[in-house]
Every structure is written in structure tokens, then in C-alpha cells.
């Protein structure tokens, strides 16, 4: 198929960017979206132009590197998938495709389609851990049985890949889904109880400091999350946060 691509190009954080048009032909429907961009980049390089920079690594939907806003949707038109797992069979001959980076104040642009998501890392430094040393002397793994329901819910929350689609989908650029997934994982497990109150307070405070917006419960984050992280995590974090503040 032949496609018209409208791609955000920006040299670096200090320079102004703009949308640039590219034509690409003979795209196979079996290609992934990023493989289509590989073809474009090969053509650009051969012509002596600079290729389009974008983040990508595992290309199997788990590392969370890829972060493209495609026709206005994080990770594009296919539900429950990352950009790297989006395939060109979801498009048709003659389509125009607008490709932008995820947009949020807390995710400044590095170059072209690459953004800086270190705000997510800093939120995690604030409390996304259980304080246990790797001494080899921890208790036996089966010493504390964990209700299967809690374990499964903790796993579901922990399956977040940290891509930032939730922030990109939200009109307020809120990071509540991301942060609540992490808070929930620990809040649901017995191992997470000791630091439970401090954790939620510290992580929420860092989240606010990073400039993410407030949550107005529109649910766009859940709808666009490639891993199906549930909104109930946000409800849980709100309870955790209120509980923690009441006690302090």
C-alpha cells in the first residue's frame, strides 16, 4: 500500500518542531508500524537526509520504549497494543497517518518522536520499593501464603510497562494510572504493608512535583493502556492516600 505520513520533526529540546510530510510506497500489511518507519528511515538515509528518531527496543510489546501518538491515539488505532505490535494491516492504501510523540508537560521532547520520561523514574525513586536487603536471609518464599485473588490483582497492576500512554491519552496529562498501578501492587501484598502509608504519600507528592495534571475520572487512560491496567487502581490509590493522610 502507499501512504502519506505526517511526522513531527524537532532537532532537540531547544528547537521548535514542525510536521513534515513524507510519501511511502509498497508497504506490506505484514509489517509492523516500526518496520514501516525503518523503511522510511532507510530511504531518508540513502537520500542523505536525517532519519526520524523514535524510541524502540524489544519490539514485542513489553519494554515500554515505543511512544508514538498515531492519528491522535497513543500507540495508534489497535486496542490493547503498543506501537511496536501495531501492524500495517490496520491501515489501508492511500491513508494519511499523523505521527507525533506522546505530548505532556512532564515528558519534554528530546528529538523528533523521542520524549524524556524520567519523571516516571523519579516517581518510582520516591517509594516504589520494599526496603529489604539482598542478604539471602529473608524468610522462605512460602512462609506467608497470599490469597490468590490478591496475588493476581497485584500481578495485573504490576504488568504496567511504564510507556506513558496513560499520560498521553489524558486531557490533563495525569499520571494517576501509572502511579496507582505501582501503589496498588504493593498495597495488595503482605510484604508491602510496612511502608504502605509513607509510600503513597511520597509517590503522590513526587508525581505532583513533576507537573502531571489532576485526575478527573474520564477513563481515557484505561481505554488506551496497552496492558489493560484498570481504573480500580486509581480508586485504590485515592483510598490509600486519604487513609494515609488521616493517620498522619
Amino acid at each position, binding site marked *: 500500500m502507499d501512504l502519506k505520513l505526517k511526522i513531527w520533526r524537532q532537532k532537540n529540546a531547544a528547537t521548535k518542531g514542525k510536521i513534515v510530510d513524507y510519501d511511502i510506497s509498497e508497504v506490506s500489511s505484514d509489517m509492523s508500524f516500526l518496520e514501516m518507519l525503518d523503511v522510511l528511515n532507510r530511504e531518508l538515509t540513502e537520500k542523505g537526509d536525517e532519519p526520524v528518531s523514535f524510541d524502540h527496543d524489544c*519490539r514485542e510489546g513489553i519494554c515500554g520504549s515505543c511512544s508514538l501518538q498515531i492519528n491522535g491515539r497513543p500507540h495508534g488505532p489497535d486496542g490493547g497494543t503498543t506501537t511496536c505490535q501495531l501492524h500495517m494491516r490496520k491501515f489501508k492504501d492511500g491513508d494519511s497517518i499523523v505521527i507525533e510523540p506522546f505530548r505532556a508537560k512532564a515528558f519534554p521532547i528530546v528529538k523528533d518522536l523521542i520524549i524524556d520520561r524520567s519523571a516516571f523514574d523519579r516517581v518510582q525513586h520516591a517509594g516504589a520499593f520494599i526496603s529489604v536487603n539482598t542478604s539471602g536471609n529473608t524468610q522462605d518464599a512460602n512462609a506467608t501464603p497470599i490469597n490468590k485473588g490478591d*496475588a493476581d490483582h497485584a500481578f495485573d497492576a504490576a504488568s504496567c510497562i511504564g510507556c506513558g500512554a496513560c499520560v498521553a491519552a489524558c486531557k490533563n496529562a495525569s499520571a494517576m494510572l501509572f502511579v496507582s498501578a505501582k501503589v496498588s*501492587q504493593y498495597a495488595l501484598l503482605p510484604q508491602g504493608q510496612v511502608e504502605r502509608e509513607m509510600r503513597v504519600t511520597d509517590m503522590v507528592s513526587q508525581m505532583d512535583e513533576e507537573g502531571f495534571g489532576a485526575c478527573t475520572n474520564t477513563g481515557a487512560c484505561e481505554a488506551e493502556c496497552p496492558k489493560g491496567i484498570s481504573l480500580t487502581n486509581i480508586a485504590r490509590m485515592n483510598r490509600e492516600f486519604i487513609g494515609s493522610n488521616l493517620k498522619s
Partner: protein
Amino acid sequence: MKIGANFPAKTPEGPIEDKWTSYKNKIDLVNPANKRLIDVIVVGTGLAGGSAAASLAELGYNVKAFCFQDSPRRAHSIAAQGGINASKNYMGDGDSDYRLFYDTVKGGDYRAREENVYRLAEVSGNIIDQCVAQGVPFARDYGGLLDNRSFGGVLVSRTFYAKGQTGQQLLLGAYSAMNRQIARGKIKMYNRHEMMDLVIVDGKARGIIAKNLITGELERHSAHAVVIASGGYGNVFYLSTNAMGSNVSAAWKIHKKGAWFANPCFTQIHPTCIPVSGDHQSKLTLMSESLRNDGRIWVPAKEEDVKAIRSGALKPTAIAEADRDYFLERRYPAFGNLVPRDVASRAAKERCDAGFGVNATGEAVYLDFAAAVIRYGKEKALVTHQDANNEALVLELGREIIATKYGNLFQMYEKIVDENPYETPMMIYPAVHYTMGGVWVDYDLMTTVPGCYAIGEANFSEHGANRLGASALMQGLADGYFVLPYTIGNYLAKDIRTGAIPVDTPEFAAAEKGVQEQLERFINNKGSKPVDYFHKKLGKIMWDKVGMSRNGKDLKDAVEEIQAIRDEFYKEVKVPGDLEGFNEELAKAGRVADFLELGELFAKDALNREESCGGHFREEHQTPEGEAKRDKAFQYVAAWEHDGAPKDAKLHKEMLDYKYIEVKERSYK
């Protein structure tokens, strides 16, 4: 163990089950106040690097950790699917440290160092305890206890898992431990930084030259020890299940600075990957080995059925049971679909080479869940007091169970192939997945460069010629959490009075200059072909001539062809953009330059090894049934010393003695 007199493997004396304990009792320790005076660099933040960085920082060392990704959490360990082994014997099926040790040595076709493997088995249980304490959500049963499943090459259930995302959960666990230390200021994290070279001062590893991938600036970083945890080199094949950025460069740079590179030809070709779909393909996707717990592998028994399937006239589900060849169950009745990876891969290739491949290119076999769906569905119907003879109900219930076990893998398959694997069998074919070879290390995990360590997939030590499923995660975390934190102290104890290592020295300047010159050479080269052109060309030679099946003539050709591509690369490569700023093509050029050297050493090593063992199959050396034929004369680790160019690399042999395991024919029949 014998290796060149200067570099003994330094394995401790005593009975094997006491070696690690007595070693720990005798090593030098560094007191807490002195640890604060010592810096350690860790390159790579996967399971090995992440766990090492966190543990060393907990101990009190000042850690500087580097990753080329935008966050440590994105290292490629994240993509590991199936599980992690540990000899907990929670299932009560007779598991023990010795059995895990035995299975690993046998699975590696008797080409691993006994002492290292025993230690790995010994600490395996601690890993699970540690991860649970960190909040890693492993799969549990209804009683709230941890669940296990089986992996290839063993007869017990010792694999702990978190759906098909075990690597992700373990890495996030290690990353959480890092977060705690980053917050304390004990780890200084350098994201989007690539190690460009190792700096050696007075014969010791004392730092690295790193490139800030955002600004393009070169930086000098010093430390009292350098730990390489940069993963494997499967991307030398261009197409592999590795991430796009996975590369050999950190390991190769230390090799060129004096670290010996061991067994480069030991590469794992994983049997269950999604087949190649076309020339545009940028990477291959693994379908976890855990699927072979429930999936049965087959091809049609009749050639006319193969033709009809390829033309689209026949669907696989329409082929009668009697007309299917479940070739693993036929050839290996004892282990069936759970034979080790090397064996399963070669068997699939044998059927496809014989003309029974089921896709258009003839390079695919089926992985079928129909029997498991019915088995699970019937059980669930009985347990829930429903009609177990109702076929539609049984199918529905069975598919639900399969979805809870492998849901994310089935979804991934459907996205890529556009077929529903709940209804039609998956198509799979072997692909490059893991490299058992790597930097040679002694019992302390130290390379032949004093103060430079290699851990995880980057080293060579535990898996011999073939790695068993779910053992890579175990090794990465064992090295990082429980082995290196002890062994490195034994070395650093002598460095407590050294003080901070300055970076304004001739050694740092010379290393930086070398890096700068190579980068300039790429940018100023007036070639016509992009980096990928050369990488693909190299990958094709590696796959065709140094892949699943090798012979002397092809290997000799491969050596020459790779040398020719390397010459062409330096003449013709075209790297767009500037030295400053983010430039992925420039980063790729440096990585491919290293693959072009490693590829040659890889072929040379395969040529030297005149035997078949594990993942290394020489056509000249096979039994009448087509199985790998080992040769006692090659019961050694081939450690290569760099001497100017891959063709001049010098071979050192670490002879392997097996005192605790009888070396037998490796049979899975």
C-alpha cells in the same frame, strides 16, 4: 581446572557442596566505613546488572550504573517470558540442589564448569525468597502458595513464573531495589549512556569512557572495579529474539583490552519463535518454552497434505490424528515435547529440510493446543459439576484455562500473525535467542583483566553448550544478588587505601581519543550504504553458515566473507547526522563494527571445535541417528585472547574435569 598459568579459574578446594560456603568464610571483607571510599561501575541494568548495582549499593559501595535505554527497567531481561528455576522442591517431586546442578551440566552437554553450576543451584532458592520479599507477584495456587511448572530437559517442576511475563516482574523487582538505592544516593544512574571503552590503569580496570546518547558528549568515569552486565550477542545474526539495541560492544571492548572471550560459537537457537514473514523483518518474537508444557509439536505425515496446506486448500485442524507426525514425541518418547531447546530446534529443522514445513517458505512447524484445551476443559467441567460431554462447553472452559496460563503470548501471536491460536495451531520455527558463550571469568566472575567482572549472559560460565529453559533468569540474579557482592569484596579489600581514581590521566585521555576518532571516522565516511545493509549481510552469513548446522567448508567461507564485509563496511558505510546530539545510526555503526569482528571469531571458534555438542552442531560429527556426537578431546572451554585481529586470536584451553557427575551420552529418549 587448568587454564593458562596466569589465569587459573580459582575454584575453591573441598567437596562441591562445601566450596561456596568455605570460600565465603575465607575471603577478605571490606569494612563498612571503607566501602564508602570505593566506587564500582556497573554497565547494563538487566537482571544481572540491576541486581548487582542494588546489592553493591546496599553494602555501601558507591555505584555508578549505566544503561543505553531511557530507564533501567527497559533492559531486555524484561522480555523473558517463561520462568525462573529454583531447587525449592515445593512440589515434592524429588528436586534438590544436586539435581538442578546435574540437569544444568547435562543440559549444557558437559561443557560448563562444575563448581560454578553447583553454586548457582545452591543459591537458586534464595532468589525466590528474595524476589517474594521484594513484592514480585509470582503465580500462586488457591492455597496461596507458589505455583511451579515444567521446562525442557528436566523431569521435575521447578520453574516459578508470573504468567508469560516472568522476566518483566523479576526485572521490576531488581529495579525497585535499585530505586531504593538511587533514592539514598548510593546509585548514581546514567540512563541513555553507552559504554564506549574500558580504561586500564597499571594493569587494572579503573573506569570507562561513556557516551551520553542525548548530547553526543563523551564522558570519563572512574571506579575501583568495572562490572560488565551487558547481555548476550545474539544480534550478530541480525534477526534474533533480542531487543533491537542488544549488542556485544561492552563485552567486545573489554575483550580487545585483554579479557578473553570464551566459546563464542555456543549459541542457543530457540525452537519456538514466530517464523519470518518477509524481508522487512526487524526482529523475531519468541513464544515461551512454557508453551511446550501444553502444546504438541507436529507436521503433516504425508507430503500431499503439506502441499495442500501451503496452497491454502487444507486447514491443519482438518488433518486426522493418524496423519500427523508428532516428531518430538516419536523420536524422544521419555521427554517428548519437553526435550531441551537444541534438540527440539534441530528436530524441527530436520522435518522442514525434508520438505514438511507448513508455511509458504517451508520453514514452520505446528505448535498445537487442541489436546490441552480439551483436557483442561473436561477437568474444569468435572470440578464445577457441569457436563463434561458437552463439546462446546469443554472447549470454552479449556480456552479460558489456556488464556489464564498463556494469555499474553496468545495475544502477541495474534497481533503478529493475524491468526487466532485458540482455534488453529500456532506456526513456529527456531530462531537465535541466547548466547551461552561470552567473556571468560574465573570462580570470582572476574575476567582476565584484574578488576573487570562479567556477569549474567555477558559471561560464559554456567550453561555450557546449551542453556536449559528458565535458567538465564536464575543465573542473572544469582550473579548479581548473591555471588558478585561477595567475590568483588575479596578484590576491593586491597583497594581501601587507593582513594578516588582521577580521570585527568593519560590512560583516560588515550581511551577517549580512540573513541572520538572512531566516531569521527563514521561521520566523515563518504559511503553509500546504511549500517543495516551490512548488519543484514552479516546476519545472513551467520544464519546460513554458522547457524543451526555447521560444517568445515562453510565455516571457512564464513570467516573470509565476514572479513570482506568488514572491509566493505569501513569503505561504504554511510552514517547521517552529526557527532553532537542524539544519533541512533551512529550508535548502531559502532555496534555493528563490533559484531563484524565478533562474527569472525565466532566462526573461527566453531571451526576449531571439531565435535558436536549442545547448540553447536557440526555435520561431520553426528551419530547414525543424527544426534550430536561429542568428543572427549574437546572437553574444554575455548578462551580466545585478542591479538590485533580476530584471525590472530590465541586459543587458551580450560580443561573441564567432572568429579561429581559422570559424563554420559546425553540422551532424552
